[in-house]
């Protein structure tokens, strides 16, 4: 069960006072972070805006984030997904670190990312538990569709 998300059959139990019109219920909440010592975050900001325009709650935690700060923030904010932008090449250490921390803290949510990641590394990381990684210049539509497909009622198996 993805933390924080209510599967469709629980929707009718939403508190009367807080419920919105049906389509906008359960807006997806996602934490975006940029890891690495460089400060180039224009790309992730473009994605942040696109996700917001697609109806999501977007929490951008900034540049130069560490695995620890990202996972701690995800824990406090009750997000449905963590999206990492990484251009620096440290993805083979970073993603396993994040997954370790997530397990240790009991977090069960979608872990996705993108940036400068070679295809063979994408394969390896997805095999080891990262939900989805994309190469550079992926159209934001693809990310949005993926999240909308995976999150309502999604059962993460890792």
């Amino acid at each position, binding site marked *: 069960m993805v933390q924080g998300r209510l599967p469709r059959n629980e929707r009718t139990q939403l508190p009367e006072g807080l419920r919105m019109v049906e389509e906008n219920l359960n807006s997806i909440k996602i934490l975006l972070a940029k890891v690495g010592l460089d400060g180039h975050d224009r790309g992730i900001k473009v994605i942040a805006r696109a996700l917001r325009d697609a109806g999501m709650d*977007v929490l951008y935690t900034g540049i130069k984030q560490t695995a620890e700060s990202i996972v701690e923030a995800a824990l406090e904010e*009750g997000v449905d997904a963590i999206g990492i932008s990484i251009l620096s090449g440290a993805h083979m250490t970073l993603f396993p670190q994040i997954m370790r921390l997530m397990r240790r*803290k009991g977090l069960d949510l979608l872990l996705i990312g993108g940036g400068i990641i070679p295809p063979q590394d994408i394969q390896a990381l997805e095999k080891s538990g990262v939900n989805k990684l994309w190469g550079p210049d992926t159209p934001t539509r693809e990310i949005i569709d993926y999240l909308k497909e995976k999150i309502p009622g999604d059962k993460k198996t890792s």
Partner: protein
Amino acid sequence: MKDWQTVFQNAVLGQKLSISRILTWIERGRDPSDLIQKIYQLDPSIYTIAITGPGGAGKSSLISHLAHPLAQGHYLGIIAMDPRSERTGGSFLGDRIRLSDKVNHPRIFYRSFAPLGTPFAGFLTAKMMARALGAFGFGCVMIETPGAGQSEWDMERLADTTVLVLTPECGDEIQMMKRGLVEWADIFVINKADRPGIKNLESALQRELQDRPHSSAWKPPILLATAQNGTGAEELLEAIEKHHQHLKISGALEKNRETHKHLECMLWALSITWNRVNKAMPQGPLNNPYLEAKQILKEILHERER
């Protein structure tokens, strides 16, 4: 998934993941006849500070300097609300990034949210999250709100102490802008006090304050700050503490909290009605909206209580 009672118990015992889950259920919805009623039954007490003001005034910056001192000796919650876009249904939760290092603290729990639901959802969600934190042993919560203060259910009305953060540029607009807040904020902070226009704003505020009933024993201070480098944070902390003492000694703390509960009750009723009316709203053109409204109310009042 564990049942909510177990999660709640674990949250009371201080387990962070469980605290997070309860807040998420409040933020995104859970049956009020269970979780929310449980919270009301416990009737937890938590000192609530609202930090409000126009966008760009420096609320997040100020909060970043108040966080560690306020977390001395007890657990501090910080709730930051951002508006939800009506057009897209999405939101940009941009307050946390301004504090990142400062909230990395074992006794601080920071949650951002955008209200989901009726116009009253922001108030009710923030208030219930604050109460929940109180149930989990938190001693204080700061709520950052995009200031408006013009309707009765604006978020500032839910706090024990309301701090209004302005900048010198607000001087000319003070008569027109955010009348509600100026009329009853407890502490004023003029941030970015290194900019011109302070005297103008100070006099405008003094004039507004003179209009307040003289019977009130609390004289709202007007503080200067440059939040960027932390100047003024200490004075603000002192003022908050002074106001807190005043509330306790004068009995206003309990009195105001009773008023909050009345407001909450009204908002729950309105919220539930809002949703039911929404559901019962006919599609297509209306001939007589007023008669239609009365018809809808008749229908929903005859619904069996769920």
